[in-house]
């Protein structure tokens, strides 16, 4: 009997230590972000900063910002010093936050119900692709919009983390890689960092 209990306990520990599947990560991540966004305790403009912080905190768990920033910089990544790389990762995270937080907040304000449908998952070694369809229904008009979002994940430290998103067939990393690379053909890396910083402050009037 004692052995049986030990075995069950060990199995239990093993099960909890096993990483969540890529699809579960995407599903849980979406749910947690939506919960953070619609938390009744943090509604209204007066709680905006708090709400954003909570969303960012959730996203940080599921997104691998280092990998995403590295991929966005492409071949220019290795040419930079470690400090510059670190500054870039930080600024890049802020840029995405400033660009998309308003849209996220907008959906919340416009009383839109967001549901995610898992369509498929394929994986190879330490990489996975999760395809989803996101339905957005405006509560007042019942207007429904469906967009396809694919998440690219990789295994890092035993957990699946997102490093790229494809919205309606367009890759986030690819889009930024083209932009950064065309800027870096004409300007220095420091100028790119300044540009991003200006853009972050321009997008977020609270700053």
């Amino acid at each position, binding site marked *: 009997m004692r052995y049986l209990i030990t075995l069950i306990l060990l199995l239990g520990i093993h099960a909890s230590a096993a990483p969540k599947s890529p699809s579960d990560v995407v599903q849980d991540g979406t749910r947690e972000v939506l919960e953070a966004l619609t938390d009744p305790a943090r509604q209204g403009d007066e709680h905006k900063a708090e709400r954003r912080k909570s969303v960012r905190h959730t996203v940080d768990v599921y997104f691998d910002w280092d990998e995403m920033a*590295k*991929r966005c*910089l*492409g*071949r*220019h*990544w*290795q040419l930079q010093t470690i400090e510059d790389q670190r500054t870039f990762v930080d600024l890049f995270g802020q840029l995405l936050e400033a660009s998309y937080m308003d849209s996220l907040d907008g959906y919340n304000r416009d009383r839109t119900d967001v549901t995610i449908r898992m369509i498929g998952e394929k994986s*190879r070694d330490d*990489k996975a*692709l999760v395809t989803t369809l996101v339905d957005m229904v405006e509560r007042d008009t019942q*207007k*429904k*919009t*469906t967009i396809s979002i694919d998440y*690219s994940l990789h295994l890092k430290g035993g957990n699946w983390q997102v490093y*790229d998103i*494809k919205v309606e*067939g*367009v*890759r986030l*990393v*690819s889009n930024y*890689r*083209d932009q950064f*690379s065309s800027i870096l053909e004409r300007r220095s890396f420091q100028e790119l960092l300044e540009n991003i910083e200006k853009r972050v402050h321009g997008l977020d009037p609270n700053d």
Partner: protein
Amino acid sequence: MHRKHVELAVGIFGIIGILCLAWLSVRLGRMEVGDKGYPIHAEFANCGGLRTGASVTIAGVEIGRVRSITLSGHEARVEMIITPDVRIREDAIVAVKTRGLIGEKFLAISPGGSDKYLEPGAEMWETQSAIDLEDLIGKFAFGDVSDQ
């Protein structure tokens, strides 16, 4: 009699012209890299009319050709032959692009920053399918059916 000679000459000239055209189309359509390169493959949700022999480019420079396109599950599996002196990083993105607005389809590789390189026969994991212009125009012009 003279007239017959002229007709014959025109006929021969015409045949030579047709042969030249045939040679040109075979030459242009064929893989010039041949088997000298190494193969890599990628899977696309939609390769949007990409053809065998289409060019594979980095920064607009041709570095390979499409060797075969087959259906794998519900996806298009595209096999490419890349020239031996070009190495592709593991996080490079391969996208189906169109020359001009309605031109031919080709593959454009955007180089990555990873320190790992793709081995011959490896799969390029990061792909971007052809953007369906008709689909986009349809959505824009007529709205989503699910709007109602």
